[in-house]
């Protein structure tokens, strides 16, 4: 089996002082653990692991309509949480992520903290664009999600740790609901893709589309589904060495989008 013997140090700091003391002593190939799944993806090559479980929040709270979900909340816990309707798509994405065993360990913030920015939950997060509570050496700061997106890739500032996702009540008020559809194990190259739709209160909708062959695409305040379908049809062709053709992918996307817009699960 895959052997992981690169790691020379493992730390689980109890407080932020200890955390930043560790981060102040730069060790090449350091990985932050927020859950554990990244141990497989990244940790096997990391020489130092820093486990954030004592540092980052893992609770879910709703206060006056504002929702705070700790970055250390497991995906399973997020899927089971009682959340307002606009967060339904996020809950659905959590409920369909990987396997039950992985959902019990993976955290909502894990992929972002580990800079492994492809996950079923990213589509809903991109659309919901929460504020992010960050832990810095000088205390907690809040930054908009979109500020940390650079060319559709999520990047945390140096020496900061993601603590929680904050969904302000005022922002959530713009949606009346949402849904997420994951199409997986469909052929060899068509899958996997995720579609997230958030229904706006003004009748328009927001769409996030994730697929490994086109990364992430978002459309906001769409009022004309036909226009959107035309845009999807104009997406750049996929990379070579894939069996599915661009035309097949477009047809599939169009069909799934139609179904999702019709209101049900695709």
């Amino acid at each position, binding site marked *: *089996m895959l052997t992981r013997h690169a790691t020379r140090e493992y730390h689980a700091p109890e407080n932020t002082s200890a955390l930043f003391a560790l981060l102040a002593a730069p060790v090449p190939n350091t990985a932050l653990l927020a859950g554990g799944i990244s141990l497989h993806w990244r940790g096997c090559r990391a020489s130092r692991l820093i486990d954030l*479980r004592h540092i980052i929040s893992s609770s879910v709270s709703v206060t006056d309509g504002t929702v705070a979900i700790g970055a250390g909340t497991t995906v399973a816990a997020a899927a089971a949480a009682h959340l307002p309707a606009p967060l339904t798509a996020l809950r659905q994405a959590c409920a369909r992520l990987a396997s*039950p065993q992985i959902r019990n360990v993976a955290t909502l913030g894990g992929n972002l903290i580990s800079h492994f920015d492809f996950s079923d939950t990213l589509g809903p997060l991109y659309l919901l664009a929460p504020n992010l509570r960050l832990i810095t050496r000088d205390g907690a700061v809040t930054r908009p999600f979109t500020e940390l997106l650079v060319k559709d890739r999520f990047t945390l500032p140096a020496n900061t740790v993601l603590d929680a996702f904050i969904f302000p009540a005022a922002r959530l008020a713009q949606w009346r609901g949402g849904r997420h559809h994951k199409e997986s194990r469909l052929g060899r190259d068509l899958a996997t893709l995720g579609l997230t739709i958030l229904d706006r209160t003004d009748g328009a909708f927001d769409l996030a589309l994730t697929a490994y062959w086109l990364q992430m695409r978002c459309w906001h305040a769409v009022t004309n589904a036909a226009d959107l379908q035309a845009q999807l049809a104009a997406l750049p062709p996929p990379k070579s060495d894939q069996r599915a053709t661009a035309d097949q992918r477009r047809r599939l996307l169009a069909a799934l989008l139609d179904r999702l817009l019709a209101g049900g699960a695709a």
Partner: protein
Amino acid sequence: MSDRITLHIDGSDRTVAVPPAMTLVQLLKREGYRGLRQACDGGSCGGCTVLLDQRPVLSCLLNARQSVGRKILTIEGVIAYNDELRLLPLCLKKAGSAQCGFCTCGFIMAAAGLYFAARDPQRDELVTALSGNLCRCTGYEKIIRGVELFFAVINGRTDRAQLASAHDCTAPVGERIEKLDGDGLTRGEAAYASDMVMPRQLVMRLLTATVAHARIRAIDISAAEKLPGVRLVLTHRNTPDTRFTTAAQGYPEPSPYDARILTDTVRFHGEPVAAVVAEDLATADAALQLITVDYDELPVMLTFADAYEQTKAAIHPAGLANFADPAHNLVCEFQYTQGAVGQTPDLVRVSGTFTTSKQQHVHLEPHVAIAAKDEYGRINIISSTQVPFDVRRIVARALGLPFSMVRVSKPRLGGGFGGKQEVLVETIVACAAARLDRPVKLLLSRREEFLFARTRHPFRVTLELGFTRAGKLTDLTAGILSDTGAYGGHGSTVAELATMRIASLYPAPNVRVDTKVICTNKTPGGAFRGYGEPQVMFALESLMDEAAAQLGMDPAELRLLNHIRAGDRLPVETLFVQPHPPGEVITTCELPRCIARGQERIGWGTPRPAPAPHVRTGKGMAISLQGSGIANITRSSVTVSLNEDGSIQLLSGAVDVGTGADTVLAQIAAQTLGVPLTRIHIITADTAVTPYDSGSYASNTTYFAGHAVQQACARLREQIFTWAAAKFQLPRDGMALRGNMLVAGDITKPLPEVATAIFADLRPVDTVFCITVKKETAAPPFIATFVDVDVDIQTGRITVVKAVQVADCGTIINPLLAEGQMEGATLQALGYALTEEISYAADGRVRESDLLAYRVPTIFEKPEFAVEFIQPHEPTGPYGAKAVGEVAFATMAPAINNAVFAACGVRFRDLPMSPERFFAAQRS
């Protein structure tokens, strides 16, 4: 550097030293916790599931220190937890949930997590809870039933008394008896070679080729050899140059001698080119990084055209392997003809060219072997193999040793499906152990399994059928091209069987089949459930449906008109002998009843309403036959002996691959002797202990080894009766063994007392009988398969809603285990039909090398199963039995293809029937 940490495991605190890199599964295995399996390279199989604070997690993805301060529960903890949870393994045993058992504890742990989350879950909750675990043997159905049984028992819907063992049964043939090793498998006690650690053991890791075709110009191992902890580095320069085949088959060995322990010429991407033996895996891996290989690259040939039709290079130049035409990479070719095709006028003709895919076995336990010298200088090999005696032969040849200096045994096997009919790892660990005087273990990773373990041979089948207007098949013309990959291996025999099968199912007066086996720069093909039949049946049974449409007949009607019948003779026994000897006469064939029953179970002719506007539904069918071993090749010997306490010892060289063969052989023994099943003790497959057996393949164990058991036990029974009649002056007529008693008229004597008296006799009374069985027959089992599918015409997703398998396998010795074989084969075949394929980039690199890219069916893809047996008494089989293991495979792909056509008018000519191909076919 290791720190000591305290973990709370199964209710107790344990303080252990843990290096920073250690995962939780590594720690638990080191500390002796059982039942944890690793079948993937991380995160995909669920075999290492434990509970952390009552929730299932994958212990391979967690650093051991992440579990500090949390409650860890393992299978031992489940058994000891409370009076309810300890029933969980028992329920899975009772339901037949464990076949090879390698995955079973992972499922039990996932189910234990559900127990803590939901007192009485609905079926969909249950399925979701188990969805993170892979099983390759069972088809998941019996696992679900085991967990359902558990919740039914703890919620009072089922009486606990139903969990009582049936092992005290004295007439067990035909009974639904749980496996004799069921407790061990479900409680994590079974020992697999992959779990074993020998004292002073060294570990081996392999360096695999990064190119697909090249001569090795230079290989520098000097830096690796100097690394502290490295004990040996092997390459082609310091290993024997002996040529042998890695394909394990009976005598006469039919495969080309084209392999050596380590190659000087890379013939496929991922082929091992060097091996490092070191004190630990970290050192071995570090040493691999220090080896440099200078390749002189050669043309890469991945297609029939490149390798054969316009050959770019000889993969095995003349003189290196006994190929038919090495210059054109032709391993072998043969032709079967009878009558004269194309001579009959006015036939309704259908034709097509079909291609099939390269499927991997994905037995959950990878290939593994441990070799060590004993005090006599013998090489002892513990291997996860289906063929211990063939391993002995091949290792002895490779190392130039007499057979007597090689001993091979197998513990429990974590699946095989033909993949472990290949001697893949044993020669190199034996080579290393012979030099080092220390045990050496090699366990392949899942990636290595995908890179160089064997696969099903991809075929291109060009087929034409000609029918009279009344629907009688008159002409069958086929051209079969088999891609055997980089080595000949099983290529010739797989193609031979395919040729015979395509000519067998529907006897036609005029037949011509031309078959060629071609070598390419792909992963070698090997033995795989069905052994060539699934490839040709995809073509034949798909085309039969097209013919039925053209003839205006019901597909079932056309098959009923043409299929082989009892009294017919199989057209040929082997193609390797000229003139071809005729095949055996079929003694039992219940295909008409199978078809009729299948039609009833699927609702043939009654359309099912579509569940959504974009979904079309359809039903399809296919039929097939298989073999029960190989006539005139399979050889099974069995030794049965009476112990002094009246118990029975059964020694068999056959291997229980997970099918339950040990239990079936014990059932036959108990039935024949009339003693309780609990009095039969079976020991299998150790070349130094058990008598010779060809190995477990070709579905041969029940039919051949079972017959040997029946005959040996009958001899022992007669000996006991004869001795007892004389000793106790009892009437010989009517004497019987019932329960644990010898019965003669009104007189009964406990068998233990009789046995003790036999051993006390002053004369040497023989209590050991060895019987060898070899037969001129291998009575074919038959099957009719019906499927009901949903086709999403917008996404191309094909969902098999229901699969009906009605089989004539003669007498079913154990219906519980036989159903498990049918269900498991059905789902494995569903994967072959719809998702599974290893493909190659243009430079020959393998594209699918993990369980995320290569998609075996999960529990979500499991259809509703309906398995039924029509049971004629097959006179050539033990208690009328034929084989069960493979027959359910070959029909699934054509049945699905035919159902898709019925649903939406799309016909596939290529496997797998992926959405991409659906769209392409839809457009065309």
